[in-house]
């Protein structure tokens, strides 16, 4: 009883004095305050309310302690300094003013550190992004570990935001205008040694091998020891913050000291941004504005514009779309099918073509033993070269060493026969898209593989159940649809039939995640999800070409809507033959809804050898030398021969754009309606990461939410009048159009 009372009293007093610091703590070592961050509620540290409150409290205590001569800020969380601001804090805000206020609070805290009477050293190990990096650059000195996990970036632009806690003001001072713009407008990741070269950090330390405890735990201790040494030096003035500037730096500084030159820089950067974004993304322009305000009109104005713009941006549909994509991507990097019974440790790829070799590359890259099988030595040599080139390019860019390249390549085994297949855990076939060939290899493979081995087909349109029909064990058959080029495209579409076992799916997802893919799992059917959305869009594109809109105009209309690649270029990239194949196959499966342009246009192109980029000619003529591609006059002639009259009522520029988009979106909605798609999140991720649906719109379902299903249905009805059932809105669209409160995303 007594002790209970004691506890009660203690608890009470603790509560009153707000001694419940959970995220930030500190100790004083030799006159250096070592401030340690660790959010116990999460795997990563983010700038939450609690963290900021704890930090302010600690800072005030440190500043109030006259024995403290300098301070170190360090995270004790493995692999993470501070990953950034907490997105949820922004999402709950109802107005731009509310978000601006958050920005101002951040600005104030960091300004206090910058103007602190004692020097601050940021000791960075692991992720240091967004608000985390803004925190670090408010400190006077930065030490970073060269651990692979140490990555610095200001990725706000990718979320449609700007660095809102002083980043737009401090970065230009630290890196110079051009580099600062580059870092903030691309949001690119910077590793420690690069950061040192750029002047973003002062000092780097190498990661440590095993000692008498966990290496990362020891590394953080070591980082702290080094940072404390630096902090002591700063206090005693034996270490200086200023670094020596090279000649180039001095010249650049002098040149950028001229206002006229600076104006030219702003102009050039703005032009570049407009060219790349077509004005569809407000964040980059806001960043330029905030930087310009600070540099030209002084810090007060700069910080003000930064905070105001931050608030405005947070309320834009573009930012919502990009944040949605970011969160969707995180969701699609998880395995929702549980841990597979056995891990895939060795894998075989059939067919060493573009896709097969690409799949092999992303597999060996993660240290999985991979057999690459082809039928000819020439094919095999080409595939092997593709893998080598992919890895060598990484070595050239210094993201891996040549030694790592060689080690990675040693996981690849090229061969012409089925030897060793008795030991593989998974086979992915990437042979020619022909059902009888697929059946043939499936039977050959099943004769040699062990019972647990999974057979995956990398097909872009053939229904998996038709492929599995030839299998003795359809529960082990699954579709794994990769996108070209495999090492660059993030998406993997996994297709399950009603016979595919859950463990097979879990295994395929695990392999895809290991390969670094963002994964959607969809139901079986002709074209699955992605190809099914692409086909009507392409067919519509051909009709538009037939109606006399030139390939260049069509490209500019689609990129102007936000697609990264125009439809004409897309046809060339995918391959005219592949496009014809898909259009015809799916046309047969879905009937007149998939009509529109005449497939014979593509077939005539193929006859003339215009197979797209791979053959040097398609909609355009490609040559290695010329950067600016010319329209292929041969294709123009074909289009003339197949000329259609454009109905004037639905052929304005905007209507052309919406005809393409509405067919895409309607088909996506149908996939959700029919259960091919499990949820709108996967639909959005698949469309953006696999097909290049405009990221600023966030995917077809996010687009319906923000644009309004009713508005789209109205447009479609007009198109339906002109062209018929290709534009008939599906039932799901009609339901959402009827009730505007219905949204695909909460």
């Amino acid at each position, binding site marked *: 009883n007594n002790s209970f009372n004691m506890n009660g009293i203690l608890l009470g007093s603790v509560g009153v004095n707000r001694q419940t610091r959970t995220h930030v703590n500190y100790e004083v070592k030799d006159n250096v305050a070592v401030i340690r961050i660790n959010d116990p509620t999460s795997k990563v540290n983010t700038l939450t309310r609690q963290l900021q409150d704890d930090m302010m409290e600690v800072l005030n205590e440190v500043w109030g302690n006259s024995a403290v001569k300098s301070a170190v800020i360090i995270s004790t969380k493995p692999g993470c300094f501070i990953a950034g601001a907490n997105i949820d804090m922004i999402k709950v805000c109802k107005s731009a003013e509310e978000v601006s206020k958050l920005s101002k609070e951040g600005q104030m805290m960091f300004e206090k550190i910058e103007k602190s009477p004692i020097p601050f050293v940021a000791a960075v190990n692991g992720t240091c992004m967004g608000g985390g990096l803004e925190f670090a650059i408010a400190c006077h000195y930065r030490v970073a570990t060269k651990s692979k996990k140490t990555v610095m970036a200001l990725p706000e632009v990718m979320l449609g935001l700007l660095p809102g806690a002083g980043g737009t003001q401090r970065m230009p001072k630290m890196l110079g205008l051009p580099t600062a713009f580059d870092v903030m407008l691309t949001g690119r990741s910077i590793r420690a040694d690069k950061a040192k070269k750029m002047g973003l950090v002062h*000092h780097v*330390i*190498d*990661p*440590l*091998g*095993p*000692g*008498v*405890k966990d*290496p990362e735990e*020891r590394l953080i*201790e*070591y980082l702290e*020891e*080094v940072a404390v*040494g*630096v902090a002591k030096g700063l206090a005693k003035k034996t270490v200086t913050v200023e670094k020596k500037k090279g000649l180039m730096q001095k010249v650049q500084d002098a040149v950028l000291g001229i206002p006229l030159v600076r104006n030219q820089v702003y102009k050039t950067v703005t032009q570049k941004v407009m060219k790349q974004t077509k004005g569809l993304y407000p964040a980059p322009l806001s960043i330029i504005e905030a930087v310009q305000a600070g540099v030209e009109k002084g810090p007060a104005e700069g910080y003000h514009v930064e905070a105001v713009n931050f608030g405005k941006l947070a309320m834009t549909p573009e930012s919502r779309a990009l944040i949605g994509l970011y969160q969707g991507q995180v969701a699609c990097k998880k395995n929702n099918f549980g841990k597979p019974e056995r891990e895939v440790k060795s894998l075989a790829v059939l067919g060493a073509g573009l896709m097969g070799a690409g799949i092999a590359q992303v597999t060996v890259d993660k240290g999985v033993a991979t057999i690459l099988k082809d039928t000819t030595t020439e094919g095999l040599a080409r595939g092997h070269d593709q893998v080598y080139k992919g890895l060598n390019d990484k070595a050239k860019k210094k993201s891996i*060493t040549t*030694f790592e390249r060689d080690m990675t390549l040693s996981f690849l085994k090229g061969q012409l026969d089925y030897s060793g297949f008795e030991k593989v855990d998974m086979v992915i076939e990437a042979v020619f898209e022909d059902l009888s060939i697929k059946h043939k290899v499936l039977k050959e493979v099943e004769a040699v593989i062990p019972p647990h081995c999974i057979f995956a087909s990398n097909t872009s349109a053939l229904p998996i159940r038709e492929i599995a029909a030839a299998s003795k064990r359809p529960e082990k058959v699954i579709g794994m649809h990769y996108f070209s080029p495999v090492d660059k495209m993030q998406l993997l579409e996994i297709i399950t039939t009603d016979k595919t076992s859950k463990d097979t799916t879990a295994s395929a997802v695990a392999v895809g995640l290991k390969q670094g893919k963002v994964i959607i799992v969809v139901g079986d059917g002709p074209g699955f999800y992605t190809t099914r959305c692409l086909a009507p869009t392409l067919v519509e594109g051909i009709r538009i070409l037939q109606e006399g809109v030139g390939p260049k105009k069509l490209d500019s209309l689609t990129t102007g809507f936000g697609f990264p690649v125009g439809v004409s270029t897309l046809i060339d990239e995918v391959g005219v033959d592949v496009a014809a194949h898909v259009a015809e196959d799916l046309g047969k499966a879905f009937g007149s809804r998939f009509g529109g342009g005449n497939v014979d246009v593509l077939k005539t192109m193929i006859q003339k050898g215009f197979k797209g980029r791979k053959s040097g000619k398609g909609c355009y003529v490609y040559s290695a030398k010329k950067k600016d591609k010319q329209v292929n006059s041969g294709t123009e002639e074909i289009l003339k021969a197949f000329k259609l009259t454009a109905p004037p009522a639905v052929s304005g520029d905007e209507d052309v754009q919406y005809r393409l988009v509405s067919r895409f979106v309607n088909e996506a909605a149908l996939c959700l309606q029919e259960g091919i798609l499990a949820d709108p999140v996967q639909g959005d991720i698949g469309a953006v990461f696999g097909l290049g649906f405009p990221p600023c719109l966030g995917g077809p379902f996010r687009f319906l939410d923000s644009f309004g299903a009713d508005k789209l249905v109205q447009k479609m009805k007009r198109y339906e009048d002109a062209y018929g059932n290709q534009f008939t809105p599906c039932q799901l669209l009609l339901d959402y159009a009827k009730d505007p409160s219905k949204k695909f995303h909460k």
Partner: protein
Amino acid sequence: YVFTTFIKLSEFTKSKKTLSKPGVRNVVLVEGVRTPFLQAGTTYADLMAHDLARGALQGLLNRTAFPKEAVDYIVYGTVIQEVKTSNVAREAALGAGFSDKTPAHTVTMACISSNQAMTTAVGLVASGQCDAVVAGGVEFMSDVPIRHSRKMRKMMLSLNRARTLGARLSLLGSLRLSHLVPELPAVSEFSTAEMMGHSADRLAAAFGISRLDQDEFALRSHVLAKKAQDEGLLTDIVDFKVPGKDIVSKDNGIRPSTMEQMSKLKPAFIKPHGTVTAANSSYLTDGASAVLIMSEEKALAMGYKPKAYLSPTYAIPKVLERSGLTLADIDAFEFHEAFAGQVLANLTAMESDWFAQNCMGRKAKVGAPPMEKFNLWGGSLSLGHPFAATGCRLVTMVAHRLKKEGGQYGLVAACAAGGQGHAMLVEACPQ
């Protein structure tokens, strides 16, 4: 990982008394010698590697009065190769007057090259292929091969093949300033692109070895070496006459300093916060060593008094357990001292349960050797470290120590670039 010393041992009997195995010939060290170890760029500066190797081989013959024709095989280690004498074993042996019927080959395994030479020799004797094998190692750091750049080499090779004057001129026309930048021998490891000193500094940091500890250990090494030198214990040295210069008979890198002086040095590799300095690292050294390894019966038959039984081994702890020996049974330890930080990190690792469990797959720590049995006559830090010559120096020294101190078992361990290590159990022969 680079400096973690994994140590090898072959199986032997459960008997605690001897390393000998039934049915396998006993292999003995008859004699071991070395040239004085000199800092690079000093008295040996104008020589070549095979000169030093020849000196060690001749010294071995002089000291043992061994008939040259009775040597069945010669194995020599070297690390930085002189391209003119890529099989330095053969060049040195012929120069030392060995029979041209005695085959000789060169091995390379970084700092344990002569350990590998001895291991090869022990294998040849144990398997009955040979009765007497000379093993050794040489390193010559006063001169290293500095190459033309790859571009320049390519051009020069093409120039060789060019037939016409025009073709030659056009090739010469492609000469650019950048072609003339020379290529230094790799100071960093090929696979990790890391320099040894850098790696040693990280190793010391990983094990939390302080600068003070490292300086103290280096000082200990120099003090002990000086004492051994003054007391005349370094009897493995044979004089070396440098043409046109004096006879060299002493190591010249043994220089006990003070802690105060050592503490003034700046870190040599990781700046400014590293702990490895010039004073607590081994220095660039010229030198050669050689040992005579024989079957026990042949040595006794020829009237020699062998010094020690040799048993090259892998992985100390496994072997100690298998043989029923413990660290306590070892009377003399000779560990290679590349860097003070590395030795101390190795000792810390042997004392650590965490390391044993997480990095060696063992249940508990191995235990570290007691310092009163450890490198008592100095080590590579003070005596010098001609990479490929150090292994024989270690083995000969442990044999001499066992004799002097009256011990039975000695343990030699050395680490090498590329994350490799070597160890050898040595047992004193009955006198």
